[in-house]
């Protein structure tokens, strides 16, 4: 969370903003990140920064795999890699590992 917050504050400063009202993150379900921990850390770390009192919004990105047999992408159910059509496992992850600072609300 420290790196996310630092990056957000850097971006805000560069844009000449003095307050950060909202930080929006995109977090993949396979990123290994625990959203509750992020919320907790955000509150603790944002104290005394321009983001104090601001909001942290997390958009969850589902895990999507590519099935070479069916030639299509599918959303993983409970993070398992098997294709719901042909039940073959897929080794090609297309999305779900994101840890991204998406946007900021500032003034």
């Amino acid at each position: 969370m420290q790196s996310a917050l630092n990056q957000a504050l850097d971006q805000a400063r560069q844009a000449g903003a003095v307050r950060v009202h909202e930080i929006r993150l995109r977090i993949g379900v396979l990123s290994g990140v625990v959203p509750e921990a992020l919320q907790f850390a955000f509150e603790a770390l944002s104290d005394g920064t321009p983001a104090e009192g601001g909001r942290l919004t997390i958009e969850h990105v589902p895990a999507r795999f590519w099935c070479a047999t069916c030639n299509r992408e599918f959303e993983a159910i409970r993070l398992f890699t098997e294709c719901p059509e042909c039940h073959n496992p897929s080794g090609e992850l297309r999305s779900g590992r994101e840890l991204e600072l998406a946007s900021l609300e500032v003034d």
Partner: protein
Amino acid sequence: MCQDCGCGLPGEKPVGISTHPHTHDHDHPHHDPHDHGHSHGESGDPHEHAEDHEHRRTLEVRRSILDKNDRLAERNRGFFRARGLLVLNVLSSPGSGKTTLLRETIRRLGSRLKTGVIVGDLATDNDARRLGEAGATAVQITTGTVCHLEAEMVARALKQLDLTGVGLLVIENVGNLVCPASYDLGEDLRVVLLSVTEGEDKPLKYPPIFQSAGVAVVTKMDLAQACDYDRDTAIANLRRVAANAPVFEISAKTGQGMDAWCDFLVRQHQALKTRDPLGL
């Protein structure tokens, strides 16, 4: 600090790095506490113009939070490629046998493939000492309260590692099945361990780390019977989460599976020579 679990509280001891075998001087020189992402006055914009910033506005950023780590990891990767090193990032929960597996691996590979080790733990240099005794050049990173290794810590540890003649570099990560999954260190292969004592459903409980595995190793096979290890279920669970990772079943104690494992590493190392140095 880890953006995953909040470990590494500010004001804690800085990350330490020590080499082995060496004198045991525990008064580590003060390495910089790695401050993630502080770009000091990068823009230098003091925004002193009279602002009419009453209006809220949206800044689109769309940048990876681990951008900095990923860039440093790629730098490490370039260094490894240039030196022809095969690099493993070894991940598991604490106590599943990383150090014992490595010690036996180092011993058996011997001069076939000289091994260097970077070990991460919160505290103590015990593991580096153990691996140093087995014949490897070893550097210990003590992370303080940080629960994983980062590319930058590895880069600093590399400066203290004598890589002369080394073909295999093993990075033994901090024992943790959650946060290390997010941090690329520049490795060629992620090796994720599952010991038979941990239960067959571990891969299903911690999908991200097993999903990221390039190789899965089932350890402590000598205890399989004693703890009613259900092999079929364990392998099926690994397959569900890490479909393409080869699985090795090993007992470092009895030597079961060690030959296949060591041969695999030697083959992987040889394969590096035929690979395009830029990985294109």
